[in-house]
């Protein structure tokens, strides 16, 4: 067991150095390491799909003896076969049936979740700052900041010009000022996301350096 950990630690150490060789320039060692990771990940995912999806959820139910389950699985199996017709230029239109089901059900689920899981809760959260009975009643300025920031950010993505409203005209100085203010909020948001990504990348680097140091210290 210890030898196995040692072997895997050596492999991990070598692969880590191969990836870090990219500091110098793009080289075959880096490419080999990346290809290896991609290959291993793909192989693992394939095995997972076979053993955790196809066999238990598509094949084994046929041998369960439950008629209802067989019926449902049979329909799913037919849809899967129809999906394979996407490879044929002659019968590919039959593959549109399962694709339509998947896309339709997925879109309905996402839209429903977005409306009731994101949109309404966020509106409610934004208005909470202006409710006197709320615990955040003391953060009126924070609520105002969130409200203005939300409005300006949404106005920045307003690309449709309404002729009857001069404010929506791109030539309007007020509208351009609003859009510029909206860009400020968007910049702050993207800056924070970028900083978070840097921190995560830095944490990945730190983890590898920590591994290297630990590996070296182990000897």
């Amino acid at each position, binding site marked *: 067991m210890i030898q196995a950990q040692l072997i895997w630690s050596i492999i991990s150490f070598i692969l880590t150095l191969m990836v870090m060789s990219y500091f110098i320039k793009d080289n075959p060692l880096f490419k080999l390491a990346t290809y290896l990771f991609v290959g291993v990940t793909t192989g693992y995912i394939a095995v*997972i799909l076979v053993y955790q*999806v196809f066999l238990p959820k598509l094949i084994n139910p046929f041998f369960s003896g439950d008629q209802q389950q067989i019926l449902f699985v049979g329909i799913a199996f037919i849809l899967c076969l129809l999906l394979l017709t996407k490879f044929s230029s002659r019968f590919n239109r039959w593959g549109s049936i399962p694709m339509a089901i998947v896309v339709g059900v*997925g879109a309905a*689920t996402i839209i429903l979740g977005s409306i009731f*899981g994101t949109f309404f809760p966020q509106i409610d959260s934004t208005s909470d700052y202006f409710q006197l009975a709320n615990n955040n009643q003391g953060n009126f300025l924070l609520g105002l900041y969130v409200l203005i920031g939300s409005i300006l950010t949404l106005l920045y993505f307003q690309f449709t010009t309404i002729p009857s409203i001069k404010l929506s005209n791109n030539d309007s100085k007020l509208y351009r000022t609003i859009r510029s203010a909206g860009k400020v909020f968007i910049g702050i948001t993207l800056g924070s996301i970028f900083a978070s990504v840097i921190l*995560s990348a830095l944490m990945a680097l730190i*983890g590898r350096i920590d591994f290297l140091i630990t590996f070296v210290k182990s000897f």
Partner: protein
Amino acid sequence: MAQIALIVAKTMKNMKICPLCKKENLEDAAICINCGFDLNPSFSADQPDQPDWLESFRNDPESNVRDSLTSDPNSSGLDSSSEDSPDWLARVRERKHVDEEFEAIQDNHNLQNPVLPNSKGTNELIDSFRNNSLSTSAENAGADDLIDRLRNAEDDNYSSEISAESGLSNKISSEDAADLTIDDDWISRFSQIENSSSEEPQKVIPKNRGSIPAWIQQQAADRTPGTTEDSPENPVAEWIEKYGTRDEPAPESGDESKIPDWIQPLDDEDTGDLENGEEEGFPAWLADKDSLPPASMETGGQSQPDWIDEINQQTVDEDQPAPEEILPDWITEDSSEDSSEQVSTVLAKKDIEESEVKKTQSKAPLKTTMGLDENVGKKAGKIESDRSEGIAKPPFQLDQVPSWLENNEDLINTSFFEDKETKEAFVPDSTNQIEPGELPAWLKAMRPLEAIIPAISRLTENKHIERSGPLAGLKGVLSSQDSNQTYSPPPMYTSTLNITEKEMNQAAILDQLFTEDVDIQTKHNPIVDIGAFIIRLIIPILLVGLLVFSSLTQTGLIERPILFPSETVRFASIINGLILNSEAAPQILVVMESEGASQAELEILTRSVFERLMLKDSALSIISSTPNGTLLGENLIQTAAVKHPGYDLDKRVTNLGYLPGGSSGIQGFLLDNSETIYPSAIDEVPDSFSNFSAVLMITDNAESAKLWIEQITLHRPQTVMLVAAAAQSVPMLMPYLESNQIDGMEAGLYGAASYAQLIQNEDSSLWSFWNMQKTGVSVFILLIIAGGLWYLAQFLLKSKLPKSR
């Protein structure tokens, strides 16, 4: 007058009526005693001897005239002339010439006889002659009707010839029929009129037509029975036929001295047949007119008017291949050449001269078509020789059509002459001055066929006659041959585009885009900038060096977090509540939404949490919407379990497996977990999702976390939601934290350090990471500041340089 009366008395039964003035003349009269009209045909060209019909006509003139005309077309001069049917244009000229001659005669006659007793009757004759009434119902009205009818018939013939252009043979036949009726009429009326003239023996002179020419008067005065006997017995039928065909009188005279000068030139053409005519007892020139070619006119020793000479000459020309001199130069030049290809070329070049070409073709029997063909010339010569030999046989066979008959519409309409150039068929008519239509230029441009195959290839004259094989003698049956011969390369057209300046500019922009694209693709590898390469090496080396130094030194310069985020406080409170407040071991659903990139960070985040939960021997169920998420989750738990060896991973940790389907799979799992999770784990998890004490979502992917949060908010809003998020996903999850959709969150390393501070966990690795992160962040801050200053300096330098310049 006395002589004329004597003659009339002798020939009461066999008298002939002048077609011009309708006056009766003796049977053997050569010319009309009244108007001097030539009572004998002047175009009996092709018979060397006296024809049979003439003899039969002597016996029974009235009955045999018709038979001779209809039964044997070659026996009369008319038929021979019909064979050699001249072109309409020649007819026009001849008619004009005859009219002039006739008017001159009439004028002369009027001058000499201003008032005559029968002048009124003469006018009626002329009027009836003009009315073109071929019927003989008005024969008692006098011989004047005949003149008018003949003149009108002549006009009709002329117009019909113009409209039909080449339908000569039909006209000839129709004219023959008309002449037959006329012939019968005037012959039947001959005796009546002659009787009346005998009762009043006086000069029959047209009233208003001028005086009779001197030669006619002399003839009338000097006419003796002997001279009349020398004339042909019955040449009337032929000359009427000739008249019907040629529409011109043929004056004749037995006395050379009494014939006007305009008849003289004809004698020059007559040769040896003269003697034959004399031997047979009638004037040689008359015999020539009846049966012989124009050359026989010389036999009578009489001169012939110029117009007759022209007609005869034309007749001869039509029977024989046209001499080179008659044809235009451009045709004679091509005559030596072979094919119709050159003819087509010439015609194509001389479209303007097309009318002249027609004229030339009418005069010379189509030197441009079959006239160029030697075979056709030989055939024409053969026909001529047959005529001279007196052989009565068809002038030509259908496959040996003379060239001049190709213009005959009836023959062209046969299957052998299907193609007929419409443009050629057009004849300008005085009543219909419609010019030939011409296609517009744009329509011509859309017809490349005309560009490749010239229009001349469709001409009838351009057809090729097959000389051998089963199709021998047929014309134009192999149309491809003409196309091959007349093929010419297509014309060159300009390829210049007519585009506007705006389009030109747009094309230039498009070309520039492609040019830039090609330049980018063909660029060589950029020259390595040593400075950039050094900076690229220095930064990572500096960063890694500082991180290693920070990890090794463990300096106390870096402070630990003092202010704890509220979400982290709530996160710690919830975890403590799950451990402390519940009597049974809590069942925690671990949702692992990561692909391994932030595995180190997530390990730091979740290590203290899992260690805390393991204190209570919590049941951990791992599920993930990513295939390798469960594997990473198990790794985190195994790492945390190192410090808790009593925690039974096999029993307390359940891998629910990969959850496919995205949001749909999550929704299905939330609604009925038994249908979606890994079947082997069904017995180890709660029957319902609501039985889980809390959901611990470990994620570095904000989008996947959003799906879980939305679906849990929608379907399981009462679920305790804890999130351990990597730093990169924290900004996107903060709104859900503010909306209390997330109950507690451990955000990034700062949250992990805060949580460790809250639970007073002294994890060395955590603080080592803390120190290294702070060092690294400091380096990044310095690099960002240095980069900002560098670009600011460059901006200032660039802004100052233009001012200094």
